[in-house]
């Protein structure tokens, strides 16, 4: 499987599109376990444009987080290893950078906020110092004036993410803040170096519903101010429906469907997406007719032992007894436009 054939199949140029602030090409990341090599992410390609929010959905273990962590070199090696692919940001292939350059890009070109704000901050340092550290680490030999400037910038950032009394909060320790406040601090920290890409890995999973809405609103505000491209990793379809421009659906380490949020959610072209939507309670008042949620039968495949054909085939209601699904791995293809793609052999037959 060479890059050239992949590109031909996808019909895309090898170099990233000019408006793409993040381009992932053929990313494959594996983990070595006692029971063999596990492909956590296989041949994932997508683009994120400036000012756009891309939602990555899928269940636990479908490779959402691994995709994000691969970009920043945060995959623990060993056991993990990015075996192939390119991740382009600002004309740089992050996967080809040496450690020093990747470190320089981390936080300044690509920043990340994590799932659990309660434990993602260092417990023994003040909030302000932790934000300032992110700024200073990208300056060569910061002077005393630089440190002072970074401290002031930290307070400004706290104010910008809606932390009340930012001067005082900057002097506090993480345990003195609530979960929602800590996630705001994480966002301030991530935005401290004006990144081009912000990866938000389930940013609201650990927060309650009202705080969830506040944090998502804050992310939208920040995006409007800075035109940052946001990669929102989540398993919450409702969150996706309200907050993203385009969606990427992942299953067993592969992208099975991608497109605009309207297309994918209203007119899904992959049986897995259809299954996901059927087991999601609707929040729309128009759906006042009560319907039962239908679970997808079966379990996700064992990643050490993926079926040769379509990974979803054993659970697919559409397959019937067709052999093709079991024999051949389906590729992403237009469904029917280039903006909406699905990796199903029979995507024409998929109905919502």
């Amino acid at each position, binding site marked *: 499987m060479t890059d050239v054939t992949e590109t031909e199949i996808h019909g895309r140029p090898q170099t990233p599109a000019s408006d793409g602030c993040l381009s992932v090409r053929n990313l494959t990341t594996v983990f070595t376990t006692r029971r063999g090599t596990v492909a956590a992410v296989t041949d994932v390609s997508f683009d994120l444009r400036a000012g756009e929010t891309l939602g990555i959905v899928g269940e636990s273990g479908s490779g959402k987080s691994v995709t994000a962590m691969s970009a*920043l070199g*945060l995959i623990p090696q060993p056991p993990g290893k990015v075996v192939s692919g390119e991740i382009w940001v600002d004309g740089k292939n992050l996967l080809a950078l040496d450690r020093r350059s990747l*470190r320089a*890009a981390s*936080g300044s070109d690509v920043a990340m906020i994590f799932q659990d704000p309660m434990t*993602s901050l260092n*417990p*023994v340092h003040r909030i302000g110092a932790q934000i300032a550290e992110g700024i200073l*680490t990208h300056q060569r030999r910061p002077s005393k004036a630089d440190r002072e400037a970074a401290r002031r910038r930290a307070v400004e950032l706290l104010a910008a993410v809606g932390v009340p009394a930012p001067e005082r909060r900057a002097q506090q320790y993480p345990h003195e803040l609530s979960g929602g406040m800590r996630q705001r601090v994480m966002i301030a*920290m991530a935005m401290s170096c004006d990144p081009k890409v912000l990866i938000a890995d389930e940013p609201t999973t650990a927060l309650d519903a009202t705080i969830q809405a506040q944090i998502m609103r804050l992310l939208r505000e920040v995006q409007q101010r800075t035109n940052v491209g946001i990669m929102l990793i989540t398993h919450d379809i409702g969150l996706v429906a309200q907050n993203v421009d385009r969606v990427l659906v992942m299953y067993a380490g592969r992208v099975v469907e991608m497109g605009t949020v309207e297309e994918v959610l209203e007119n899904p072209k992959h049986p897995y997406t259809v299954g996901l939507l059927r087991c999601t309670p609707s929040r729309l008042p128009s759906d006042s007719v009560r319907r039962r949620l239908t679970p997808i039968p079966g379990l996700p495949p064992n990643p050490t032992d993926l079926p040769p054909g379509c990974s979803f085939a054993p659970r697919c209601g559409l397959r019937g007894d067709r052999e093709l699904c079991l024999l051949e791995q389906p590729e992403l293809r237009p469904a029917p436009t280039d903006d909406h793609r699905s990796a199903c052999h029979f995507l024409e037959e998929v109905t919502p």
Partner: protein
Amino acid sequence: MARYFLKLFGRLLLTLAVVSTAVFFLIRLTPGGPAVAMLGQDASPDAVARLNEKLGLTDPVFLQYWKFLTQLAQGDLGESLTNGLSVSGTILSVLPHTLELAIAALIIGKLVGITLGIVEAVWKDRSPDVIGRIMSLVGLSFPSFFVAVLLVLFIALPLGLPTNGVAPFVELGSNLQRLLLPALAMGIVSAAYTSRVTRSLMVEIIGENHVRTARAKGVREGRVLVRHVLQPGSLPLVPIAGISFITLVGDAVLIETVFARPGLGSLMVNAMQARDYTTVQGCIIVVTTVIVLVNAAVDAFYHVLDPRTKTA
């Protein structure tokens, strides 16, 4: 602040009351007595009785206890039953040597142990870790007095280092020479234990989310290690150091015997053998005080280090 010291003082008094009462009665339950120990097994009962009366041991036991308590309240530990010298004077003359030994062993143990533990955690499951873990396993399975004998055989004798006694503090060179081997013997065992604890602590912290955050910010690995792993990790090491120090004071009893160092340990062992009730009581009271004070110091230091305990 005043309240803190008042509480500390109260705790010290309570502990001392319990410990001194226990040791007073327990030591009198041990078979034999100072008179038998001094005069020998074959002494006539008459002579033993006379000596006991002279030592004041024929008084009713509660009268003796009352006398002991009133003396203690005035800071008087009494006189040795064997040589009549002031117990507090004797203890004060040897205590610095024991403290010196325990502190030196603590420094060696923590320096070596923490360094080893950090190296093991950073290179987890690679050769430095495997070698370090084997070393600490060996260190843990050797008792300190055995290490002491090995050190004498393979280091002191070939190098011609002194292997016994102490030197006054003013003769610094000679003092340190005589301190080195016993402190090493205790320090090696302490280092083995410390490296284990440090390793598991650091491995745990390296896997924590805030370390990932620091890496995502683009912080240099060296700085990640110091600010985001070692600084949060140093907190639990403080009480562990306190416990180590207390264990080391206990260990000193054996090591002082091996190296024939005058100290609290050897004083206590000799006093036990002579059934010198007052000296044993005095030693135990002093050791208890040291332990309570070390614990208080550890507590106070922990409060200074950990921001989370300040607002609570």
